[in-house]
């Protein structure tokens, strides 16, 4: 707990800075006066503009009448929306409605192996987020986002994923400060962690149907923190951002714990900039420290009987990420290229309990595992993109106390046998507009210890409602 005090301190200090927004009250009078002056100028200019318009219109009408005496003005060649602003707004009850958007996603999957037996070999599996999903037609999540400024000081955002199985997940529900200055922003609530590059990106903006293997295995797909985050952007021409997070650890690789302390801490640093007018880039390093208690997973023992094992201890993950985007003069309409890669290294140390509902033996556990992916997406013509991704993971052999002491054979932990899973994925997508995308993806998945899984997926993504702005 003591080591978390600095984070809590930073957040409190940040929140205390908020009232400073109002401190400038004395300056406000001057500012108001000046603003009134500016308004006056604005209105004078608007009146002038209107006068000019009227004159122009009058002369245009006069010319038209001169040109075709008696003839009615020709209808425009294609429908012109009325240039007059709608003025009949009578009620303002809905004027403050937040921005609402809904994303529809679904897919068709053809998998050569039974998805129920999917497991990335060599790793303790996450409770969810692993594997290609079900066969045949699937309704993926329908993502509902409601976002708005709360007041001059806070922005609020809720993203709820309505799952095909009729459950609702709160993906994100956070507030973000607007009135801190000096490059600081604080986010609180539930939010996707700022660690890594892909972690903060919502599924409808992924360049492939699924997450890289290393994200599935190390972060359960995507790490959402219940907690607080502070970010600081350096006053520099380059993009230099530092961030720290403290969370409850409820999301994998941590677990919900009956404890007042925080169990998921993260630090990250980002550096970014441009190389010429066509290329931009971002590099990042992140560190995540998560603690878990009885993080259970299903396995079989040396005789093939199902058992439940559980890990209690600390999980530390380092992430290095790099992203490069290219488009001619920065305009991605016709051609664009995106290269993106991340390397994750995780060490877990603590106790591993075997067959918690039966024999219930426990011993030390230490692992040092890593994984990476590299992907490239190329927009080869307007509306069309093609992509290639390669995934690779190295499980190595973890040190299991129960095995070393001779209490159990290493075959009692088949999921943890050393393995080097890999996968190669190709995708092509077609975006009829900014708001719709159809995608086909084919993967050769060698993540299982046994046979290769050949996965064909067809996916649709439709965005309705408010036009959300996207991060880099």
């Amino acid at each position, binding site marked *: 707990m003591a080591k978390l005090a600095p984070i809590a301190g930073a957040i409190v200090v940040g929140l205390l800075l908020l009232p400073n927004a109002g401190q400038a009250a004395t300056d406000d009078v001057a500012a108001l006066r000046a603003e009134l002056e500016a308004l006056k100028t604005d209105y004078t200019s608007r009146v002038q503009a209107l006068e000019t318009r009227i004159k122009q219109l009058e002369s245009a009408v006069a010319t038209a009448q001169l040109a075709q005496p008696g003839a009615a003005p020709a209808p425009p060649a294609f429908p012109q929306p009325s240039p007059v602003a709608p003025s009949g707004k009578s009620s303002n009850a809905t004027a403050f409605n937040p921005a609402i958007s809904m994303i529809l996603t679904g897919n068709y999957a053809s998998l050569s192996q039974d998805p129920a037996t999917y497991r990335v070999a060599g790793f303790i599996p996450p409770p969810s987020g692993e594997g290609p999903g079900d066969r045949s037609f699937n309704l993926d999540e329908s993502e509902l986002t409601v976002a708005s400024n709360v007041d001059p000081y806070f922005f609020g955002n809720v993203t709820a994923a309505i799952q095909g199985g009729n459950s609702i997940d709160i993906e994100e529900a956070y507030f973000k400060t607007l009135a801190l200055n000096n490059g600081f922003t604080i986010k609180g609530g539930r939010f996707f962690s700022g660690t890594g590059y892909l972690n903060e990106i919502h599924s409808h903006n992924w360049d492939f149907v699924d997450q890289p293997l290393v994200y599935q295995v190390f972060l359960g797909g995507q790490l959402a923190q219940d907690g607080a985050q502070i970010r600081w952007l350096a*006053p520099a*021409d380059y993009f230099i951002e530092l961030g720290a997070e403290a969370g409850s650890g409820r999301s994998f690789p941590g677990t919900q714990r009956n404890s007042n302390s925080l169990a998921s801490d993260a630090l990250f640093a980002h550096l970014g900039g441009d190389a010429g007018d066509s290329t931009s880039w971002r590099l990042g390093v992140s560190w995540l420290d998560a603690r878990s208690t009885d993080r259970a997973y299903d396995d079989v023992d040396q005789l093939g009987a199902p058992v439940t094992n559980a890990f209690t201890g600390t999980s530390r993950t380092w992430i290095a990420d790099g992203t490069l985007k290219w488009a001619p003069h920065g305009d*991605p309409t016709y051609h664009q290229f995106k290269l993106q890669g991340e390397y994750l290294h995780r060490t877990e140390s603590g106790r591993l309990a075997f067959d918690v509902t039966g024999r219930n033996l426990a011993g030390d556990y230490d692992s040092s595992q890593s994984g990476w992916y590299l992907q490239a997406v190329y927009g080869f013509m307007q509306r069309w993109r093609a992509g290639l991704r390669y995934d690779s993971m190295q499980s190595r052999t973890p040190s299991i106390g129960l095995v070393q002491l001779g209490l159990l054979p290493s075959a009692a932990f088949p999921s943890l046998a050393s393995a080097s899973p890999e996968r190669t994925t190709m995708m092509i997508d077609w975006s009829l507009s*900014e708001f719709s995308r159809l995608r086909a993806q084919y993967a050769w998945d060698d993540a299982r210890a046994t046979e290769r899984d050949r996965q064909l997926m067809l996916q649709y993504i439709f965005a309705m409602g408010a036009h959300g702005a996207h991060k880099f």
Partner: protein
Amino acid sequence: MGKHIRTLLALATLALCAGALPAQAALRVLATTPDWAALVTELGGDKVNVYTATSAFQDVHRVDAKPSLVARARTADLVVATGADLEIGWMPVLLQDSGNTKIQPGSPGYFEAAPLVHLLEVPSAVDRSMGDIHPLGNPHVTLDPHNIAIIAKALAARLVLIDSTNAAYYAARGEDFDKRWQQATVGWEARAAPLKGVGVVVIHRDQAYLCSWLGMKELASIEPKPGVPPSAGYLVELVTKLAATPPKMILRNAYNDPRAAEWLSERIHAPVVLLPYSVGGTPEAKDLFGLFDDTINRLLAALK
């Protein structure tokens, strides 16, 4: 673990102190387009340090909220944007991630040009089936010099407001610009008289203000709906439709794909005129005056 966080906090504190030091050499301005950058330079001279988020070769609808732009937003004293939702796909990210209260909407450091002028083509109803339309009206307001005159006045007033120590400087430059601009506008209008009533085909609806200013008639647009590229079938239909009222020219911006325009040009025997659209779009369009000079030169040349 505690050590890491302590190091980070120490770093952050250090940097905060560094950030608090006044680096006030000139007013730092982030302009969303080269036109606004050129206008700020006209009005602010050497008292402003202007950074342009986009070039004339970019479609301002499709810009990434790239790290360099977030960094510029962080240190900006003033953001000059078009508004009317033109920058909606990226500006909100810059503003939110900047950690800079000076440039938040509603603050003197956030300036939008489009709301100051009379917007054309305000739709009475909107639906995404109509393409990527702008509910607030056509935001491509720069190609009417009367709009520039209005926006320049308001922008000069804004510079005075933000940087009061140089108020007299901005006011004087604003007046000088206005005088030169009014004079130039008279010249352009006189030279462009032959363009009145000339029928043209556009690609996107971003020449609406130019056409309305010069009295040119937009007979058709190559995009069937805003932001929707034309299909072969639509282009064939366009050829038939335009046979009755043949346009004199097809207007294309520096950032547009020339292929559809060229295809149409061959069939309807009207030249494609490349227009700078923005400052920097052609070598001649070095500043705002050059932009209008060159636009009119190119239109007149195509008329011959």
